[in-house]
């Protein structure tokens, strides 16, 4: 039961005046008058005290409401942990990605690979926004032994949706699958297109944005320049030449009800001029089992143009998803005896189907029901299949540009994936990849097929 202040005032007044009235009836008039005055004063004093308490409470409530409007907003949920200012202009978010893999190789007689449990990604990440338009992203990687590094570190100024400037270290806008987050991959490892040939992160600056209800995305940037599949150091550009990148990606039916609403088509490229450096010698074309099958010889140097071109597309409709892309990497190269242009090609096509009916997409699948042992939720299940291949220019072998251990001209891989999304943050995934190789050197046998089964436990927030 709650009394309002006015009710309390009335109750006290009635009680005290009532008791005064009783006293009044039993005493002489002279005494009554002074006692009544004393009681009246007491009532007034108590009344004031109650009013003061009431008003203080009222002010405290007003202050609480005002403070709440000005108070930072703290959020904790499946999309991460964040704090933002009351007006939303400033925010900071803690994110993370942890992947623990178990790698099994079958029939690996020559060469032999060790089965192992490994940390694939350990990425604590801080993202935020200042003054509504200045985003920052600091993403670190601790998985590699003795090699903790900064993966991404950039500032993005969102002046307009169609005009944004991003500077720092970030993914080069080229390969579609490379731009897909590490937590959203459908297979344990990316395809040859994005893992071996497309550059990973590089230092640079780009102008980018979205037009026409986000149907057109563009990126134009200049970077220090990095070899195929490589990731730049944070402060040590090995050459003075720069690499340019441009990408346009169009989703013409985005936002509509059309069956083509999930269709996206793009074209991207990089180009630069590098002469006389040996940066390309760090190239390692590698299998889905993470084993290197091609490197340049230590006697080679770059000799001019370096370019890449990549048409790409995806299509998502209901539980179905398809992603395909092609890439050609061309490099002018020379050694002690000769020079040439080497063209390396790779492509992939990957499809997936969410068995439990959730919408497929470029990002992480969000299960309709979370895994719950006690109440019967089973999360989302997805199967995926992929074919991808990489073909090294044959002149790399005939001209002596490949190192002595590199004999494979072509690698072809079939991949099967099974993904279990327990909830928005936890995924258990397994991929099987079968890779076969064609030798690029007459008289040298094809490399033994690689059969790799990778299983992964992933937490991402």
């Amino acid at each position, binding site marked *: 039961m709650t009394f309002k202040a006015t009710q309390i005032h009335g109750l006290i007044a009635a009680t005290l005046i009532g008791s005064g009235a009783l006293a009044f009836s039993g005493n002489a008039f002279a005494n009554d008058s002074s006692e009544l005055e004393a009681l009246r004063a007491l009532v007034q004093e108590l009344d004031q005290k109650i009013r003061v308490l*009431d*008003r203080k409470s*009222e*002010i405290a409530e007003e202050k609480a409401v005002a403070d709440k409007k000005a108070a930072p907003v703290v959020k904790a949920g499946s999309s991460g942990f964040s704090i933002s200012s009351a007006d939303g202009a400033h925010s900071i978010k803690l994110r993370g990605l942890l992947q623990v893999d178990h790698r099994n190789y079958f029939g690996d007689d020559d060469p032999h690979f060790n089965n192992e449990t490994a940390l694939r990604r350990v990425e604590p990440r801080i993202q935020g926004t200042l003054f509504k338009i200045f985003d920052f992203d600091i993403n670190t990687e601790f998985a590699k032994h003795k090699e903790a590094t900064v993966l991404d570190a950039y500032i993005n100024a969102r002046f307009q949706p169609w005009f944004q400037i991003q500077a720092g270290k970030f993914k080069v806008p080229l390969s579609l699958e490379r731009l897909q987050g590490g937590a959203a991959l459908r297979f344990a490892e990316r395809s040859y297109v994005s893992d071996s040939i497309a550059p990973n992160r590089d230092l640079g600056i780009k102008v980018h944005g979205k037009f026409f209800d986000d149907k057109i995305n563009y990126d134009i940037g200049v970077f220090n320049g990095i070899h195929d599949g490589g990731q730049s150091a944070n402060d040590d550009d090995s050459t003075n030449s720069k690499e340019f990148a441009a990408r346009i990606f169009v989703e013409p039916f985005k936002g509509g009800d059309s069956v083509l609403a999930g269709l996206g088509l793009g074209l991207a490229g990089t180009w630069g001029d590098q002469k006389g450096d040996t940066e390309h010698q760090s190239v390692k074309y590698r299998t889905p089992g993470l084993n290197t099958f091609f490197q340049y010889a230590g006697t080679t140097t770059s000799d001019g143009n370096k370019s890449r071109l990549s048409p790409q597309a995806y299509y998502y409709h209901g539980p179905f998803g398809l992603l395909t892309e092609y890439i050609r990497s061309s490099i002018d190269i020379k050694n002690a005896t000769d020079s040439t242009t080497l063209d390396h090609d790779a492509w992939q096509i990957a499809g997936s189907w969410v068995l439990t009916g959730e919408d497929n997409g470029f990002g992480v699948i969000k299960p309709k029901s979370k895994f719950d042992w006690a109440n019967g939720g089973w999360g989302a299940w997805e199967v995926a299949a992929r074919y991808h291949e990489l073909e090294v220019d044959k002149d790399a072998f005939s001209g002596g540009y490949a190192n002595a251990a590199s004999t494979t001209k072509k690698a072809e891989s079939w991949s099967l994936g099974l993904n279990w999304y327990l909830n928005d943050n936890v995924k258990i995934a397994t991929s099987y990849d079968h890779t076969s190789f064609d030798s690029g050197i007459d008289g040298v046998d094809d490399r033994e097929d690689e059969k790799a089964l990778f299983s992964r436990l992933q937490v991402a927030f």
Partner: protein
Amino acid sequence: MTHTFSKLLLAGALALALPLGASAADVTLLNVSYDPTRELYVDFNKAFAAHWKTKTGDNVTVKQSHGGAGKQARAVIDGLQADVVTLALAYDIDAIHEKAKLIPKDWQARLPNNSAPYTSTIVLLVRKGNPKKIKDWDDLAKPGVSVITPNPKTSGGARWNYLAAWGYELKRNGGDQQKAKEFVKKIFANVPVLDSGARGSTTTFVERGIGDVFISWENEAFLALKELGPDKFEIVVPSVSILAEPPVTLVDKVADKRKTRAVAQGYLEYLYSDEGQDIAGKHYYRPTSPKYVEKYAKQFPKVNLFKIDDVFGGWQKAQKEHFSDGGTFDQIYIK
């Protein structure tokens, strides 16, 4: 032929330009003000909109924001897009220059009377019959007297109240600062509730029925009498009080960004016009124009007023000594 063609071109250009020139613009201003000026600016904004429409053809809508002057200044510093500020004291506007550089340092020299189009003072509002026999500031320091005033940390009016009491005691005791400090400490020991702004304190005293005496802006005291009737309250004019000069200024960077400089400047200048001064007088602010000083002379009681510059050495010094963190107010006020 060429001459005729030129004339035709000119006529065509004029025909196109005329309707463009005649079209009225819609302009919105934000006036960030202190607590008790709500009613004043409701009337003044209407009058100014009509004046500006007649003068330029443009439609002006003036939005108002009110609160404790210190809080209001901080809001502008933090990004509230005020085209003009009309605050309770110069110190808070100085802060807008010092902390956000939204206005020039010499902002106070840009309009007459140190940019104060009207003045006011501090009086004492008591309940009808003056049951506690309040006659002057010293009565507020007596035991058993409940005093209502807002928080000087957040309210410009409260700072005027505090300094008025302090100045009274200085004059009474011949300039002994320690005695003045003890005196003001006793007054604040009698304050049961500290509101953040003057309007909140009016609510506490008038509507919630708390306290014996309300240290009030003169205009706020008159407003209480007008709204609730002289049968409920009385104004007690102290023997000495302070001349409050609430200043106004254009917020240059906001006005330039919003392209409202001309109308904002016109708005402030209109406060000094006959109509502006008359509206101020009607709302119990003391006009500064001699014509309207005379017109409203009978409305305002004669008070022995002192200036902050004369007794406290200006707002900057007063603020630092009395109201900054660790200042005199923090020393004397026990929560």
